[in-house]
């Protein structure tokens, strides 16, 4: 099974640019998630790989096989690209039974009817829908339709499986179940999967690699945990993670000989790092789980008040404030504080991300100077 390579792919409709100069290598056997807000170009990119959309510029390879080239006006037909595609709406053919739906692709690739029957049975069994083969799509539940759609695209054994928000029409519980199954199927078959989603939890929990896109441009491509720990720019930092990452905008300065960040009357003393200079405008970002609530320490200036406490069952999220600066903290101790209680804050070592305000790029990680 080949790698998929996109080379400087651009897609525009007149003035509107959907995907901008996008280059990417999707390694064989990976589970690649495209993550981004709606309209970021992730679905367009997926459709260009499938061959349903043609790039305005650029080249696409599957292995050493060229499948699209704007220069040569060449586009391999989707049926010859050896891909499977699962639509958000599933797009099951309502006038065909489950069996006919799954068998259609095999029929198109001229598989004998005996082999087709065998293959359909086999894949239906794998997906747990072997007792539904005679039904019509309208007689199935959402989850069952989802499985049929998966079976239909897996049946011809494509070298790459493309999925466009396949779980977004399911209810919350089913969605979690299906994620588990998708991950299992992937680890069993080692099938290359390209998966489009706007749900960051889905992307992080499923992908071996996550591609974050915004406004048609690649933001970051990394392994899920790396993406979460070291978001390379403000957009990624803000888009990935719930509750959202805490952000404080301010200016780097020196106060009483101490290097730090001045933001709205508050001063965060910081360990000095390279690339961050005095008078530079920066944004400090920190994940809620990297903050701890401590007792008030009158000697320190970083004292906050409780704004509200939101227990979610497994976690307790507490919002604290000092004047205009707010932080969301994932509390470790199961205590519910009363509003307006005075508390202190502590930050885990090397958890403070510093971003340049102008370029929005990550400058480095640092800690609070104790």
């Amino acid at each position, binding site marked *: 099974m080949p790698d998929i390579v996109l080379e400087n792919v651009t897609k525009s409709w007149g003035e509107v640019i959907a995907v901008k100069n996008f280059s990417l290598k999707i390694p064989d056997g990976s589970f690649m998630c495209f993550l981004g807000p709606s309209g970021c170009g992730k679905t367009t990119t997926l459709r260009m790989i*499938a*061959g*349903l959309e043609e790039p305005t510029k650029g080249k696409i390879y599957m292995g050493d096989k060229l499948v699209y080239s704007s*220069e*040569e*006006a*060449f*586009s391999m*037909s*989707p*049926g*010859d690209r050896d*891909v*499977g*595609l699962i*639509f958000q*709406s599933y*797009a*099951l*053919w*309502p*006038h065909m039974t489950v069996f006919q739906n799954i068998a*259609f*692709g095999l029929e*198109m*690739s001229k598989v004998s009817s005996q082999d087709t029957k065998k293959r359909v049975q086999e894949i239906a069994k794998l997906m747990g829908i072997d007792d539904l083969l005679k039904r019509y799509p309208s007689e199935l539940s959402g989850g069952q339709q989802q499985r049929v759609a998966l079976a*239909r*695209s897996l049946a*011809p054994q494509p070298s790459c499986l493309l999925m466009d928000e396949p779980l977004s029409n399911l209810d919350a519980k089913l969605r979690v179940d299906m994620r588990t199954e998708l991950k299992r199927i992937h680890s069993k078959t080692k099938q290359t999967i390209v998966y489009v989603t706007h749900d960051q939890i889905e992307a992080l929990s499923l992908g071996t690699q996550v591609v974050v896109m915004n406004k048609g441009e690649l933001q970051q491509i990394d392994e899920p945990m790396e993406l979460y720990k070291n978001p390379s720019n403000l957009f990624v930092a803000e888009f990935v993670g719930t509750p959202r990452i805490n952000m404080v905008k301010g200016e780097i300065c020196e106060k009483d000989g101490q290097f730090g960040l001045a933001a709205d009357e508050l001063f965060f003393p910081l360990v000095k790092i390279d690339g961050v200079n005095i008078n530079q405008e920066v944004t400090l970002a920190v994940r809620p789980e990297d903050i701890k609530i401590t007792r008030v320490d009158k000697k320190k200036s970083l004292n906050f008040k409780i704004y509200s406490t939101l227990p979610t069952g497994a976690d307790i999220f507490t919002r604290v404030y000092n004047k205009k600066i707010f932080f969301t903290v994932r509390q470790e101790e199961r205590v519910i504080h009363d509003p307006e209680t005075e508390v202190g804050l502590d930050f885990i070592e090397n958890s403070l991300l510093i971003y340049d305000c102008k370029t929005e790029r990550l400058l480095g990680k640092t800690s609070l100077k104790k």
Partner: protein
Amino acid sequence: MQTAKKQKENKNLFFKRFSNITRRSFRNPPFILSIILFVILLYLIIGPLVSMVQSSLTLHPRDALFLDDENAGDFTTYYLVRTFLSNMKNVLFYKPFLNTLIVIFPMSAIAVLIGGILAWLVVRTDLPGRRFFARIAITPYILPSWTLALAWINIFKNRTIGGSAGILEYLGITPPTWMSFGPLPIIIVMALHYYTFSFLLIGSGLREIDTRLEESALVLGADQKITIRKIVFPLIAPAVLSGWVLTIARGVGSFSAPAFLGRPVNFQVLSTKLFSNLQTGSPGIAYLLALVMILLAISFIYVNQKIVGTRKGFVTITGKAATKNIVKLGKATPLIMTLVILFFTFVVFVPIIVLAIETFVKVPGDYSLSNFTLQYWIGKGDPHILSGTPGVLRSPEMWQATWNSLKLGLLSSFFCAIAGLLIGYTVVRLRGTFLSKSLDQVSFLPYLIPSIAFGAIYLSLFAKPRGFIPSLYGTFALLILVTTVKNLPFATRAGISGMMQLGHEIEEAGIIAGAGWFTRMRRLIMPLQKSNLLSGILLPMVSAMRELSLLIILITPGTHLLTTLTFKYTDYGYYSISNALLLINIFVVLILCAIVQKITKSDLSKGLGG
């Protein structure tokens, strides 16, 4: 050396690109298909229009005889001058033009009023038997439009303008001539036919209003009357306006009612004048009148789009099919019920009964029992009765015409459905492109062209051989062609909305699976559009079978239809025969309607009113 190599490379790239692009466009045929369809539509819709303009500016051989210094085939302003400027202008143009306006304005107002009231009663009140009334309300549209005209003549005609007495005169009341013929009966008869447009448009408008909008008003303390006035009416206004404009646009081209009720007293409108000009061999003038009618219809529709276009947001609200706020009629129920029943009795049942009675009366105007006969149904030809015309059931002419009508209805609606599917498919697939918009608009154009004018331009286009197409005048193929094209707007609307509902992904899933275009059409698109296709057949079929104005100019003795035969015998004054033919026509249409609705489980009211 270097540049030569580069040139060669460029040349190779060019050929590579060319062959790749060609291969791709055949693999994905909507583009090529749309170009083919567009060319066909240009030929069948724009071509005739151009030819008509040309024809009205070219000297006709007959007129060349009267003019010394011009030859046949020359460019001439003779017809323009004669129609609009000469001392004939009043007879040829201004009088019929004025008469047309005199008819269509009051007619459309009455039609909208009747349609609106009926729609409101059926959709928004607790009137008993609403569903039954809703079905019955569209029957006047299924019946040929001159059913009422003929019935009117039978009841109200008097002997002042010759011929026999009507039923009223027989009963001792002589109606004044202005009640028998002329503008008043034309207005009434047309309004009772065309109210169906407003009924359907306003009805579906009322059904689609989001009930929550009204509920909000009620919760805020408005009573029901205020809610209707301030919320419901403004929301329904675009539908009312559209209904009105469609009625006017149709009224301009309407031929049968003015022909039956106006011509005996020489009350001419544009459509009847056009017809008589064609018959007397002045096609130049006829085409000018046709152009005026087209402009008139288009300008009304344009005004409608200007006004409604900006407020469209209203109509497109997709309300949930929730329970509607039903107005309780309470004590008024018996009164309203009686009125509605009386209305339908006089509009649907009385005319048919009157027509039926007339076919059994031997000497017209005498309704005593001894005068009743079956002669006009099963009698052999008798030289003393209607110059030997046999009873309709014995007349081979009638059987031929019935067969022709059936053939026309079935074939033209079949072609319509296919064209609708293909045009709908390409318009939706190429959405947003210039070709898609042009296809969409050109295929709607026949709706704006009055039927009689449309017939006239087809006559002008196909009267002589054109390129590789032989002269089609006098052939049945021409009738099928013109009916198909005229009904295309209904078919393409149905095709487009069907494809919109289907969405892209159903087909894309097939593309991914490696199915070619024909396989996709045959295995995926067609089966899913089947019900849509079949219900799209019903409307063109019904229109084809009760069509007169479109075809009257194109008919030759060999291609008579039930409708045109009826017209012929009315022209002779053989009302008994024409009534019998009309009853057969109604019978055939109703049976066919019932069969198609049964098979396709479709409802005529769905596609109507466009």
